[in-house]
């Protein structure tokens, strides 16, 4: 089975409010899957359904190929966006308690606790009370609680919020390490840079519907705009510019190039392939820069949501 999780036609209503409508999603094994969407799009409801906190009105969820069972939660690690800890409990006791709720024995829980305390550089925290911890420190504990039972699927809702850049980087490395060791990560975040640099797959929800999903590269392919960064060395810049303007749409250049060269963003019509365009350019000067502009996840997000507003 190549998908750790498969959602088929998931719908959920709260009273008159449609939280999710007919959502299909497939999350491939050993990938980082980014789930995005404006506030209120239904991300949290979807995540809660996977965690079996709420049940869908329609549709089904397959976990590792089979309809999801209550016992499967031991294979899932969930870091909610709104997360907390028992304030008056000691850090160590708390982690052991939550790990045991996930099915570990006390001994297993203890061994792994020490491993993770070491990994996150908090070896001497066992006897600290939670109300002595700063927000970032508490976040580390919550992360450990999420991963300590070695889940096959990790669901992380805004995992980096509250971390300083050093600790955010520490957590990011751990997430990638977990993926390389075989875990699948479902990452829900509004931080597009994290999606861009970490995710293999993405899905975008908006107003209870799925707008798009797929491999991040494929999605980007779909959103190509045929805009190319172009720079030429030539003595006749005015002639060049008016010549190109008459045939193509020119956009302001927002990239750096060799000083003194003519530059522009050129939008090619569907009918003209890049090579054909280059052929046309060759007599006009020395091409120093030719690069297709790929849409950022951020642009894809904004564009798709605006289209369905």
């Amino acid at each position, binding site marked *: 089975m190549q998908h750790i999780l498969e959602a088929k036609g998931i719908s959920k209503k709260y009273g008159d409010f449609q939280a999710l409508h007919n959502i299909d999603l497939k999350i491939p094994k050993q990938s980082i899957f980014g789930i995005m969407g404006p506030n209120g799009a239904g991300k949290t409801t979807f995540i809660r359904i996977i965690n079996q906190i*709420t049940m869908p009105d329609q549709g089904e969820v397959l976990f590792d190929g089979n309809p999801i069972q209550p016992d499967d939660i031991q294979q899932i690690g969930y870091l909610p966006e709104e997360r907390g800890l028992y*304030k008056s409990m000691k850090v160590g006791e708390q982690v052991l308690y939550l790990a045991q*709720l996930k099915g570990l024995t006390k001994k297993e829980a203890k061994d792994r606790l020490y491993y993770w305390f070491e990994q996150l550089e908090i070896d001497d925290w066992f006897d600290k009370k939670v109300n002595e911890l700063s927000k970032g420190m508490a976040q580390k504990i919550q992360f450990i609680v999420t991963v300590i039972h070695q889940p096959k699927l990790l669901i992380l809702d805004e995992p980096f919020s509250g971390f300083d850049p050093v600790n955010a980087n520490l957590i990011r490395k751990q997430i990638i390490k977990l993926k390389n060791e075989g875990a699948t990560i479902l990452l829900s975040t509004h931080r597009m840079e994290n999606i861009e640099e970490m995710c293999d797959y993405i899905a975008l929800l908006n107003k209870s519907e799925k707008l798009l999903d797929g491999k991040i590269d494929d999605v980007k392919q779909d959103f190509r705009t045929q805009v190319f960064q172009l720079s030429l060395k030539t003595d006749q810049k005015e002639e060049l510019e008016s010549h190109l303007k008459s045939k193509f749409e020119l956009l302001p250049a927002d990239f750096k190039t060799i000083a003194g060269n003519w530059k522009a963003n050129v939008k090619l019509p569907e009918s003209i392939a890049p090579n054909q365009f280059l052929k046309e350019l060759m007599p006009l000067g020395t091409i120093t820069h030719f690069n297709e502009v790929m849409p950022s996840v951020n642009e894809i997000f904004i564009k798709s949501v605006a289209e369905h507003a």
Partner: protein
Amino acid sequence: MRNLKLIILREYLARVRHKTFVIMTFVSPIVIVAMIALVAYLASLNEEEENKIAVKDEIGVFQEYLGTEGNTSFLNYNRFSVDAALDSVKAQDLDGLLFIPDKNLAELNDKVQFYANNSPSKSLISKIENRLSNRITERRLTNANVNLETIKANKTEVNIITENLSGEKTSSLAKYVKMFFGGAAGYLIMMFIIIYGNMIMRSVIEEKTNRIVEIIISSVKPIHLMLGKITGNTLAGITQFLIWAILGGILLIATSFIFDISLGSPAATGSAEIKTSEIQAILADILRLPLGELVFAFVVYFIGGYLLYSGIYAAIGGAVDSEADTQQFIFPVIIPLMLGIYVGFFSVIENPHGTIAVLFSHIPLTSPVVMLMRIPFGVPWWEVVISISILIATMFCTIWLGAKIYRVGILMHGNKPSYKELYRWMKRGN
């Protein structure tokens, strides 16, 4: 099941290790003992107060009859006029002037007057009234040539000994013992339900505002979390009971030890003998109570009533965001408990087997309090069985409905829900 055990253990330890638990367990018995001692001390102060009353008796036959009684002494003021007597009473700061005008004995019933700055105690006035009316009656009987000795010799006092059909005898003293035991048991149950119900509610709110609840219910079902919480808190309550029972036992042994020593001292012998016989009578009455039934019923009604209300308390905790929002929901919960106490004190004691007492000892929201108050007076076993059955059935209902509200509520943040919304939550599927 394993998770339920883990939750119960955590809840239990969290509760028992908490400062308020330790304080409540060890300090509140001391506070209660101190309060009882204080009340006893104040009452004894009241008894020690001396009353001096001036008497102007124009007929002249009551003075010696009034005599001196306990802390009240009657002073002869016959030589003064009424006005002079009043001045003297004021000057000497006496407690009042009793004026008996020179009238025909038959007309005297509403002519006697008592002048006082501070209104006298009810018991003092009725004491004086009794003496005067006895004396007047005697005088009038003598005047009518009736032999007082004959009347005295033939006077018969009736003390009805009630005996129930199974042959248990009760005296009037026993009635007070029963009232005390039943009342105390019912009151304790009410206090425990409120105190421990609040603890559950607070602990639910804590988890919710902490936002740890979502982490936990991604591992366990909400109903398990709720049941674990309720069970853990119940066990903590039972622990507290046990500690109190042990402390009470030690205290009892200690006091009886001290009491023994005071019996040994010769000066106290006389009064101690009287006290001992009184104590023995009370002890006998206590032993005659259906103690086994009472203890058994206390445990069953405590657990049943507590679980019934804890379902409601947990639901309230789940529905709100902060303790400040709980007031409007708490009030309707406390009303039936208060009602139980009032019905108990006013109706059960008057007539333990009357319609109202029987009715309220079967309504599950009040039965733990009311039935416990009735049991010392003897309740047929089948009535107890019916009442407990209704209680347990309702308990499952409130926990089930409570869990439905709880399950939805713990994931809701923001505005305080209305009753209408709570009703919708109850109907909602998963």
